């Protein structure tokens, strides 16, 4: 339940002016990684080449994470870059000298970082220890996936671990939290994308002090702390230097005093170290120039999610509603909230290329082959995949993921191009037609994957209101079974009873979180995707 408004007003009255302690950290070696990767990201945008764009997106995602999450400086940084681009020679052959030189610089700088601790982590640990010693009530605002990086800072018995209630991951968490002393945030204040946070941190504070730890050059969004009441002429003022949010004639604005504490290497004093640019801002501008639609992420179980265009009417189920309104069309973030279930349907008469494979039929074949090859020689398989052109970040982890047995979704590469490489390497990619179905194996298997991801819906099928009404009636009639399953499971399948004359099933996925701030191509919307894939569409 949200905090009582009277408590909030009493708090604001008592603490008229809040404080922001902004720790800006500079490190030459990390600066070299940033600069090199940033330039590669920008250069890879220049050619009209899909592979270059995808690589650029993945690199952008990698660097954005390092700038907004307290990651450890260990071998995973270098591995992540190598997983994505391969060796320097391969980069030289594929992308040319410029990019290979930048890549080499990044790799060398990242190798050098392995011997030191990330100063952001150091600062974070010191700040939290000090606040704890003063018995301050602390909260940390971060993305759910960033949480392990914070937790790894405090290992018992040296330190008490960070408790679950110290973390805030969404605007809903923030809305429902009580009052506390200090909020900790890593990365700049941004309303969308990597390291994003609710504007309410500044316009509706529940704390006295904001401790912000940022890499040098990463600036806050100028209009962070947005209030729709603010007249347009004042809107640009935002937080800015004065950190006065939303000043207008009709109210007393929140006031913030900001203190900037700089630490690390002084760019002016270190040879070859120039002042940092704001990569997050640059990436955002790059991203906006491509044809994408803004989207809302509905995160579901199993590290998967679905991107919807804003204000989509999503077919969903609310177990807490007793009446006939339990199944309804709801708007993510507005009427569709955490704890409800999104419903996707897979209908027998939706034909994607003449294929009518049962779910899991083809996947059993290629997954068995994959498991066999992986057990026999995992490293060899990965290098063969890479040599065949499957250059994915964390390829090893991806292969392990694809080996998992089908659940409500068939775990497989996200792109047809990658899927075909996988089948080719497994020796299943031939174009010879299936004897019964008269279609190549890869085609049948890919359609099976697509169907498991609910892409029938994406193909516009859901637009047919008449069928939707029919489905609504079916769902209402099997409500007791749905309710039973919803109590015990976060994701389940409900078959359509044969008596209805429609062959198919419904997939129910519990909503674990809803997040805005994504821009994705049209083809990525309304389809089930792994969160690791969706991350690249963050603004």
């Amino acid at each position, binding site marked *: 339940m949200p905090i009582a408004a009277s408590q*909030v007003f009493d708090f604001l009255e008592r603490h008229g002016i809040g404080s922001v302690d902004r720790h800006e950290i500079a490190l030459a070696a990390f600066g070299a990684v940033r600069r090199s990767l940033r330039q590669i990201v920008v250069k890879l945008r220049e050619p009209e080449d899909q592979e270059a764009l995808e690589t650029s997106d993945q690199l952008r995602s990698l660097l954005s994470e390092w700038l907004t999450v307290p990651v450890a400086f260990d071998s995973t940084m270098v591995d992540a870059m190598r997983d994505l681009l391969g060796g320097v020679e391969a980069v030289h052959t594929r992308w040319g000298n410029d990019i290979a030189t930048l890549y080499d610089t990044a790799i060398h700088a990242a190798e050098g970082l392995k011997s030191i601790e990330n100063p952001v982590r150091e600062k974070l640990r010191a700040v939290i220890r000090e606040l704890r010693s003063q018995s301050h009530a602390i909260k940390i605002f971060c993305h759910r996936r960033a949480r392990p990086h914070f937790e790894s800072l405090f290992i018992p018995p040296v330190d008490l671990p960070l408790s679950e209630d110290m973390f805030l991951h969404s605007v809903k968490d923030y809305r429902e939290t009580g009052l506390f002393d200090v909020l900790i945030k890593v990365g700049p204040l941004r309303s969308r994308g990597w390291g994003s946070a609710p504007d309410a941190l500044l316009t*509706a504070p529940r704390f006295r002090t904001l401790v912000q730890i940022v890499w040098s050059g990463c600036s806050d969004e100028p209009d962070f702390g947005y209030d*729709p009441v603010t007249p347009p002429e004042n809107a640009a003022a935002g937080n800015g230097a004065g950190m006065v949010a939303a000043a207008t004639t*009709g109210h007393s604005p*929140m006031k913030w005093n900001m203190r900037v504490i700089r630490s690390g290497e002084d760019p002016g004093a270190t040879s070859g170290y120039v002042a940092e640019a704001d990569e997050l801002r640059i990436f955002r501008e790059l991203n906006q120039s491509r044809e994408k639609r803004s989207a809302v992420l509905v995160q579901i179980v199993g590290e998967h999610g679905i991107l919807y265009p804003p204000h989509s009417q999503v077919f969903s189920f609310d177990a807490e509603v007793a009446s006939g309104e339990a199944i309804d069309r709801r708007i993510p973030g507005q009427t569709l909230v955490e704890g409800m279930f999104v419903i996707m349907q897979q209908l027998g008469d939706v034909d994607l290329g003449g294929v009518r494979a049962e779910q899991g039929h083809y996947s059993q074949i290629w997954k068995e082959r994959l498991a066999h090859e992986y057990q026999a020689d995992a490293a060899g398989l990965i290098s063969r995949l890479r040599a065949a052109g499957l250059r994915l970040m964390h390829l090893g982890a991806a292969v392990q993921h694809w080996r998992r047995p089908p659940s409500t979704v068939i775990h497989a590469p996200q792109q047809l191009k990658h899927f075909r490489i996988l089948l080719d390497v497994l020796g299943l990619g031939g174009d010879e037609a299936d004897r019964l179905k008269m279609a190549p194996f890869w085609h049948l298997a890919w359609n099976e994957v697509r169907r498991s991801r609910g892409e029938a819906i994406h193909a516009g099928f859901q637009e047919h209101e008449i069928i939707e009404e029919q489905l609504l009636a079916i769902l209402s009639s099997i409500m007791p079974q749905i309710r039973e399953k919803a109590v015990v499971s976060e994701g389940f399948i409900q078959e359509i009873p044969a008596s209805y004359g429609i062959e198919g099933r419904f997939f129910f996925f519990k909503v674990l979180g809803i997040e805005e701030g994504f821009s994705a191509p049209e083809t990525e919307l309304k389809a089930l995707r792994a969160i690791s894939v969706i991350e690249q569409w963050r603004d």
Partner: protein
Amino acid sequence: MLLFSEANQEWRPIPGWVEFLIRLGFDWPGCASGQRKIALISMPGDSAAAGLIALGVLIRDLGNPYATDVAGHYDALLRFARQYLENCRKCRERCDVEVGRCGYSAEATGRVREKGGRLYEISDRTDFRTRRLALRLERKSLTWWPDPEKATDWRIDGEPPVQLNHIEGVLTVHAYQQIVGSAQFISENLSSSYSGLCFAGRTAGETATFKACASIQFRDGNDEYRLPNLLTIHGWAGSNVISRMTFFNSRNEQLDRRASAPAMIVADGDACFLKVLGRSEFQRSDVIGVIHRTMDRDHLEVVGNRMLGLRQWYAEDSETLGQIAHAPRGISISILRKRIP
């Protein structure tokens, strides 16, 4: 002294933010200028702020001699009868006015209730030319011809009584007087319903709106008053009491009674505010929208852009803003007034 409690927490004097919101509603200027006003109020968290503003407007209207549905009630019954006899009785859509595209905002069931509680049906013998309404007891042939002078003895079934002649269901002035000391009251208004003020509830539905309002209560000595009862929304405080405001359910977009366009709407929440601004029947009404800032940026921007769009036709209303007390820290307000062409 009147005490206040929120979410069952301890009793305390009325806090500044509550007093401010009630006064804002109470001091909201009438529509003498003829220029529509739209206000947006943003709060630092979710609250019953919209209900408190609506309470202030309700108290203001209790002192307004024109704030009553009594005068036009016989006409309202005739309109209801005409819609029933000429449209709804024959309509095959039971009842979705959007699907039927009939131009009405709700179905006319043809059922009318007498003050004693008996149910009647509009009769075919109603004569619109001579303005004679004919009613008959359900399933009986006996016809009644209500006297227009005593039209308030009848009410459309499912709606609040228009005027009460007995004590039960009549508002007591005490609580309202305690809440706004300077308020004036007209005794007739305490026993008659009014639909010129509309409370538009959250898109999460009527129950969610009721729950938010129910978190607020006042106490004077041994008497306790919950906000939903003070708001007199039909069905929130019993069906046989008068109602001084209509309720617009923004989830299903239905008004709780057949009423002409309200003079003033208080909208609870961003989505509700946007819906109210978009509805054709509310285009002449003053609107006060209440949102909270603990929302995602996209939702905040949709509201901000809507306000920005309005500025083409509306200007900042510093005059009205000047009449309102200074807002407590954490509340921000913007008021726009329609430009004179």
